[in-house]
């Protein structure tokens, strides 16, 4: 995973905090899209969730001190927003940010390439919110330790949960086989 420079760097000198955040948000939109993709089947819902995530990132931005990589921070905030969104917790925020993201283009480019993948996504949709987060972060290439840090659970908990998810998916569909030791 490549880390980007922290939000406030020398080239940002002279720009307002809002401008810096919007530039940062532009670089993170692909991540927000993939998170929304895992949590929402409907394109309109994905756009709503992306807005929610963007607003929460904006609100949390002043307190981001660069202790973690910017992408890691984005995942941490955005995945928690997505979990709450699916659980229906918290009120929907009415503010909007200028998210200049072509979700229709992204939907086309990111569409499942075959029926097997489509079935897999249908199965992922049957998982609870935390399990979806685990699957997403695993697919994004994070190791168990990183996933644990992002979700605030232990690494052994991550391993256990991922094994359970694999077993569940295996039981429900022949798609997933045991990983080689």
């Amino acid at each position: 995973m490549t880390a980007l420079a922290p939000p406030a760097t020398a080239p940002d000198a002279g720009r307002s905090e809002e401008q810096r955040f919007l530039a940062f948000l532009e670089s993170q939109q692909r991540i927000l899209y993939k998170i929304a993709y895992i949590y929402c089947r409907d394109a309109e819902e994905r756009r709503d969730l992306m807005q929610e995530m963007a607003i929460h990132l904006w609100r949390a931005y002043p307190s981001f001190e660069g202790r973690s990589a910017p992408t890691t921070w984005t995942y941490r905030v955005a995945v928690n927003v997505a979990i709450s969104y699916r659980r229906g917790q918290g009120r929907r925020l009415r503010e909007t940010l200028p998210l200049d993201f072509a979700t229709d283009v992204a939907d086309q480019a990111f569409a499942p390439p075959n029926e097997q993948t489509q079935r897999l996504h249908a199965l992922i949709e049957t998982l609870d919110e935390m399990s979806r987060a685990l699957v997403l972060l695993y697919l994004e290439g994070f190791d168990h330790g990183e996933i644990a840090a992002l979700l605030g659970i232990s690494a052994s908990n991550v391993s256990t949960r991922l094994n359970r998810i694999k077993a569940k998916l295996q039981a429900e569909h022949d798609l997933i086989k045991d990983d080689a030791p």
Partner: protein
Amino acid sequence: MTLDDIRNEWRARDEALQAKLAQQSAMLRDAMIERHLEKLRRQGAMSPFSMAVWIAFMACFGLFLAANWGRWEFFFPALLLQIWTVAMGALTFIEHERLRSVDLSAPVLEIQRRLAALEAERARAFQWAFLTGQVLWWIPFTIILFWGLFGVDLYRLSPFMTQFIAVNVAVGLAAIPILLWLSRVFGPRLARAKRGRALLGSVTGRDLAQARAFAERLAQFVAKA
């Protein structure tokens, strides 16, 4: 299909997504550039009014020259004014073409550097236009205006007038090196001040100001992409 296979497939889809979004961004950039170029093409080097005034002055000077061949005391000032007028108009067209020829598909920093160079060139051109114009458009212009419109020969109006003409032309010519020295000393400070920048924008032309604003928008767009 193992979980790793699924992860690899996810990564491939992500790469396809990234490529598609980059392509989209490139298309948007091209569309932005095309819109700006279209605007520049429609604008033209001079407004219709400016063009009409320029042509009118050239025509008037031309007629005056034709009518005053042999009367060198009137012919030469008019000739200088005609040369100045033609040169200023030609310079306007050349500057506009140079702006249009800036390669907007080049890296943004290169575009901004090129526009800054054009701005400096236009500022220098304006400086020389002003320095020479302040000599030509005072006494020489007044002489041919009075002769051309009223038939009054200012050279022979009175002995004082002859001295007045000579002193004013001399002062105008002497002012050139002084003003050049002042601009070298105070110019950089003025260029950094807000009012100085506003003045620079007004003398270097609206089309260049628009081009610089466009380059700034393009820089922001590219930074986001």
